């Protein structure tokens, strides 16, 4: 069922009755996580997620936090695990419409590390590869420059952009520059988003990519974005908003009103759960256990459904 009628007067921050009914159906409570054979599938209670992935109109993949260049006991071969993640994407049984790397592609922002990760991403069997930078891709003055040289084509400002496909509006944000305590978007980027979404129908499904979470997951460790509220307030009128981030090296999902947040697994090594231990130190797992903590994410979307089905898979 597709409805293209414009917002019937819900006001800037309001909702139409129809949106409210949908909103309640899709975002009425906690996210349900279904775990089957090592896969975590999350959906909103009441959303139609039972359809097989093969029938989806849009299928895309998120990979995150490859940290190419890292050396340490938490993962002695980050290149190998990232290559395994790429192979896993290429073995999904379908060709994703696109793949998004949600940041910390590199560990130290060096041109050689960017070259290596770009070369590896070119092995993906997909039409398009997108990226947003992590703080490890933004070190010093040279890091942001090297990132934009490798991944900044057709982007605006510090590397932000948006695109549309299958009726979904995607926004890719940079919140790893000009940091003071937390992630930071900045007024230029918030203005870009304001103009970017001004003409969109409130029924347009929105997906926002950022490296650092746009919700306050654990500010003590920098796991939040200081001006995210300013950004997210502009999305109150939309029926379906999904924010997909990396940075925290673990799965975590939550809903706030009409917005759903999903933090992704890394391909390198896990971090502790918020507040467990003194700092977000790379966790060293017993031999053979690392692949249970890293992996890839697929997202399926059926036009007219609005809700997206997010499926997280451990590294095979």
């Amino acid at each position, binding site marked *: 069922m597709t409805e293209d009628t414009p917002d019937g007067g819900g006001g800037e921050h309001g909702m139409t009755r129809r949106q409210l009914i949908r909103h309640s159906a899709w975002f009425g409570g906690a996210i349900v996580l279904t775990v089957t054979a090592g896969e975590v599938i999350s959906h909103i209670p009441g959303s139609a997620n039972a359809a097989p992935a093969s029938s989806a109109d849009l299928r895309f993949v998120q990979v995150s936090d490859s940290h190419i260049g890292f050396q340490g006991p938490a993962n002695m071969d980050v290149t190998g695990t990232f290559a395994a993640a790429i192979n896993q994407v290429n073995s999904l049984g379908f060709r994703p419409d696109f793949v998004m790397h949600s940041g910390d592609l590199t560990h130290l922002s060096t041109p050689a590390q960017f070259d290596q990760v770009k070369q590896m991403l070119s092995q993906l069997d997909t039409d398009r590869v997108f990226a947003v930078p992590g703080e*490890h891709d933004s070190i*010093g003055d040279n890091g942001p420059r090297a990132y934009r040289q490798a991944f900044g084509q057709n982007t605006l400002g510090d590397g932000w952009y948006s695109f549309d496909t299958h009726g979904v509006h995607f926004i890719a944000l940079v919140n790893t520059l000009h*940091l*003071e305590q*937390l992630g930071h978007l900045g007024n230029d980027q918030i203005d870009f988003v304001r103009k970017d979404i001004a003409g969109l129908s409130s029924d347009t499904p929105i997906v926002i990519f950022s490296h650092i979470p746009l919700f306050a997951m654990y500010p003590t460790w920098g796991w939040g974005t200081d001006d995210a509220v300013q950004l997210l307030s502009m999305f109150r009128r939309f029926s379906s908003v999904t924010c997909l981030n990396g940075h925290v090296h673990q799965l975590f999902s939550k809903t706030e009103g009409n917005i759903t947040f999903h933090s992704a697994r890394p391909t390198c090594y896990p971090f502790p759960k918020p507040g467990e231990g*003194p700092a977000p*130190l*790379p966790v060293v797992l017993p031999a053979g256990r690392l692949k249970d903590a890293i992996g890839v994410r697929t997202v399926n979307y059926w036009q007219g459904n609005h809700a997206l089905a997010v499926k997280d898979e451990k590294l095979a």
Partner: protein
Amino acid sequence: MTIKNFAFSPPTLTVKAGTKVTWTNTDPDAHTVTSKQGSGGPLQSAALATNETYSYTFTQPGTYPYYCTIHPFMTATVEVTP
């Protein structure tokens, strides 16, 4: 100065002008030693991998706040006395 568990230790270091201060990163993740934005301070290390060091000799008395640009919640200060 030691960088351990995503913290600069000690959080405030007091030294006399002319002292060379060396930071050693003992963490498994990378860190920087960078003067706080807007402070006009001189600290500007590269990203320090595990066991790498950065040194700076303070010649002018004053208060020098700094942080790690990769993990900006890590903050500390060097106090330089005459």
